[in-house]
Every structure is written in structure tokens, then in C-alpha cells.
């Protein structure tokens, strides 16, 4: 069985520092990390491979070449093959153009199932899995919290989905795109100590648009139907406010406020 896991690397948003003097966000030296939902999907695939060694896992990402080290790290966690779709022409692609680029690669790739995360942590748009599913004409489902292992090997995946009001189980014939959420608690295994410096370069491929050959009019900024035309600073509505300490006097103030406004 061949599994393709789509991964994305995002800035670690919790690491951002804010410069209060200059009122700017400090983005330098912020580490890129694997998108948490994508790590869960990869964690499931590696768990399945541990029990069923004939499972082959390929991780696919699109992005600048500075993700190479992180893809090498994924290979050291027992992923078989890593593919980076990278080209200067891809910069600025919106989700539509991105899906077409990744879709073009997947069309020719060999797989039984595609696993992705449900959400991306930076944009939180959750658009790529759905767009790709349409491009590849596959079933797709998000917010998966459990995938039954034997059913995967039988090519009819049983998945548990956590929707707002319900817990649901679906049977989905493979190939399909299964998008795993953080609630799944599937975790990436650690790199074994012996493998920390393992040379994985023979299993890492970089594919540019010379070989992928997506129509250059349909990629990058100019090939993206959605365009950012303007950005606005955050308009925090300022209020007349009282600042108190966390002491008896402060609690008195809060109590008086709650009383006055009818919350007690």
C-alpha cells in the first residue's frame, strides 16, 4: 500500500514576539514547524507502517527550498520518500493555483490514499484538501479523529469524524483524501538517536516546474484568481477603561461592575 501525506510548514505562530515600542511584529528567526494537523496525518501513516512494513509513505510538500531540512527530518522518522515541489514561479500562488500545482504532481504519482491535515494553522482556510479532491475527482472528508487500520489495508477506509454535534463513522472507498484533525492525537514518532545524522539525500527529490510543467499562466501571483489588493491594520476599538490591580480593591471594582450591569 502506498500512502501520500501532504505536509505544509508554517511559522510557529506562538513564537512571534511583538515589539511594543515600534508596534510591529517580529518575524525574524521564527522557526518553521510542520503544520500540527499534517503531523497527525503523518503520525497515523507511520503507525500503520510500523505494524505493516510493506506500507510505503511519501511525504509531499510545496514551498521554498528552506523546507529541505525539515523534509529530511521527516525521512529520518521512517518516511520512505520526500518530494518538494519548488519553483520561483510558484511564489504567491493562492490556494486555487497551489491545488493545481500539487494536483498536477499527484495525477502522475502512484498512491492508494492521500492523507492531509484538516486545517492549516497559519491561514486556517482548510481549502487545499477540498480543492485537490475536486481536481483529482476523489472523495474527501475532514475532521477525522480516527482511522481504522485494517480497513485501510482493505481499501475501504472506516473513519470516525468529529463534527460539531455528532460523532460519525464513514466508509470511504480508496483512493480518497482523508483529512485528519488534531483531536485524533496521532503523533509523530521521535527520530531514533542512531538516525539523527542519517544521510537521507537519496530519498529526497526536488521537482521544479521544468519537469512538472504546469501552465505558467496558471501559477504564482498572476495565475491566482484571488488577489490581495490592500491590507489594513487591526482596528482595535478603544474603550474608556479602568485599570485595577488584582487585589481586594480590584475585586471590589469588578464586583461593583458586575452588580451594576446585572450579571450577579
Amino acid at each position, binding site marked *: 500500500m502506498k500512502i501520500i501525506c501532504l505536509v505544509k510548514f508554517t511559522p510557529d505562530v506562538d513564537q512571534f514576539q511583538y515589539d511594543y515600542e515600534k508596534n510591529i511584529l517580529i518575524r525574524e528567526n521564527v522557526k518553521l514547524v510542520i503544520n500540527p494537523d499534517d503531523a497527525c496525518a503523518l503520525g497515523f501513516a507511520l503507525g500503520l507502517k510500523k505494524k505493516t512494513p510493506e506500507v510505503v509513505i511519501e511525504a509531499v510538500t510545496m514551498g521554498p527550498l528552506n523546507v529541505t531540512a525539515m523534509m529530511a527530518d521527516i525521512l529520518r522518522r521512517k518516511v520512505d520518500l520526500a518530494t518538494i515541489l519548488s519553483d520561483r514561479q510558484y511564489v504567491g500562488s493562492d490556494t486555487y493555483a497551489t491545488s493545481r500545482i500539487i494536483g498536477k504532481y499527484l495525477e502522475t504519482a502512484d498512491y492508494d490514499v492521500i492523507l492531509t491535515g484538516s486545517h492549516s494553522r*497559519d491561514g486556517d482556510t*482548510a481549502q487545499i484538501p477540498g480543492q485537490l479532491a475536486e481536481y483529482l475527482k476523489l472523495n474527501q472528508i475532514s475532521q477525522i479523529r480516527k482511522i481504522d487500520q485494517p480497513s485501510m489495508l482493505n481499501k475501504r477506509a472506516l473513519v470516525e469524524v468529529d463534527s460539531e454535534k455528532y460523532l460519525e463513522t464513514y466508509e*470511504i472507498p480508496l483512493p480518497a483524501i482523508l483529512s485528519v484533525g488534531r483531536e485524533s492525537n496521532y503523533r509523530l514518532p521521535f527520530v531514533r538517536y542512531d538516525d539523527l545524522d542519517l544521510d537521507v539525500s537519496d530519498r529526497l527529490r526536488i521537482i521544479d516546474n521544468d519537469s512538472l510543467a504546469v501552465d505558467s499562466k496558471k501559477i504564482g501571483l498572476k495565475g491566482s484568481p484571488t488577489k*490581495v489588493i490592500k*491590507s489594513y491594520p487591526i482596528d482595535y476599538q478603544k*474603550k474608556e477603561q479602568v*485599570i485595577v490591580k488584582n487585589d481586594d480593591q480590584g*475585586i471590589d471594582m469588578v464586583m461593583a461592575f*458586575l452588580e451594576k450591569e446585572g450579571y*450577579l
Partner: protein
Amino acid sequence: MKKKCLFFYEEDQGNYVKDLLEVARQMYGENFESYALVINPLDVNVISGFDYLLAVKDQRLKDYDLINITSLMAECQQVYQFDAVIVLATQLGRMLSPRLAMRLHVGLVADITAIKSHPDGTIEMIRPAFEGKLLAGIINDGDGPTMMSVRPGVFLDQQSTAKIPEVLACQLQTIEDTGMRRISQIRKPDSRDIRESRVLVAGGGGVLKDFDQLDQLAQALGGMTAASRRIVDSNKADRTIQVGQSGKTVHPELYIALGIYGALQHVAGLNKVKHLIAVNTNIKAPICSLADIVVEGDAAEFVRKLTTRINENKQAE
């Protein structure tokens, strides 16, 4: 000529879908016709506010069958040539909208928080971007309808008309067997919704270790506990109580923000909150500028003190 807007109608989200009429109003004024598309409705008579209702009755079409729902909507697009397609960003809507956008070869702007119409007719959709530090104004540059998704509760239907829609016949031409089935569906036990609570006691990174204690304060105030993304990511709370861009948009009367920094993604989830109390060790945190009262100090300690005080008060009465 009037603009045509298509809305995907989920019956159990009816009021939230109706709120999306406000998005169309902000785009087109009163110069639009609204079309709601509903699949296998239990009761079409409760659907109001739209001009037309495309009610599709076909038992082969399941509510989770996104491939065929997409085909159906694409066929409707062919027939009616909508200018805008507006989808509520529910779990289903968030899977459906990207698929439909790809089918129609149009861009999609997800989770918009505001919308503007320019004098030349360009529609500018606004959403948080750049890790939530700025708002981006985005246009759809290309042929086909303007497509967007909108979180429940972000726009509120200001007119709330009881207009009875005219029902239009609508049938999917060819249905594909996708082979997918739902095997079971179990309703979750506690489905009280934070969006319906008058008081929310919300915790962020500053109360990571003491998040459990927030319940006592919420109970004392007759409200519910809510959480920021930090808390949910740390598995301290379920995603159903998350406030913000990646969670829910809430409009309680009182919001107590405990150890919450107030990044735009979080603040995007607060809509028309009447009163806000922020407790933070850092009074320069953005959440504090939204507050009526800022308490400078440790949020967990504040929770203990205030809970004790409220409960003492109750006993004294």
C-alpha cells in the same frame, strides 16, 4: 439588472444561513435576488427571507455527498448564472466550498469578516491574514461568480424579513455513485453552544495550567467556559468551545478574558460583545484595549478570588 446570489442552506443552521443575506446587502444594497439551495428538506415552510428556494428532493443525494452536491450547484450555476455564491463555513460548508470553487474555476475567499463594494462594482472581501496581524482586502480576479465562505455569527441579518420564497424546481441531472456511506451518527451528549451563552469566561495561554478552574467562575456567573486556540491546541479543551477565527464567533453580553493575549484571530471571534473584562499580567496585550476593566495580575489567582467573592455574596443573601 439585479444581481443573483446563491446560498447553500443547511436546515439545522437556518438562522445562520439567513444572516448571510446581510453579506449580499453589503455588496449590492437592495439590488439583488437571493436563492437558497436546500437538499432533501424536512420542512420547506420554515425557510424564509430568501426570494427563491431551490428545493432538491432526491433520496439518492446524501447530505455528506460532496461530489454530487457540487455537481448540483454547478448545474444551478449554469442555469442561473449567479454573481455570488455564499457558503456558511460549517464543517460541511468548509469541505463543499473549495470543491465547488475548483469545479467552477474560480477563487475562493474563506472566512470573510467584512465586505466592501467599490464604485466600479469590484467586490472586496476582507479576512484576517499574515498570521492574524493584519486584515487583507481580497478581490476575485477572473470569470465566474464571486465565491466566499462566512463563519456563523460574523454577519447578523439586520432586516430579518419573513418573506416566503418562491419554490423553484431543481433536479440533479446525473448522479454519480461515489461509494461513500455513513455507517453511524451519534449525537454528542453535551451540545450546549457557547454562542448561546450570555456570559463567557474564556481562558488563554496565561491560564494554561489552571484552565479547569474556570468552570467554577463560569458556574458562579451562570455562564459557560470558552477557550483560545492555545488552550485547544494543548488539549486542555474541546474545539467546540474555541473562540476566534479558527473557532466560533460569539456575542455574549459579558466576556471575561483570562490570560488571553488577544491576537486578531481571537478578537475576530468577538462580535458585538457588550462588556469585556480582561485579566492579564501584561496590560499592553491587545485584548486590554477592548476591555471595560483591565485587571493587572495573574488570571488564575483572579479566578479564585472572584469565584470566592461571588459565592460568599450568594450565601450572604
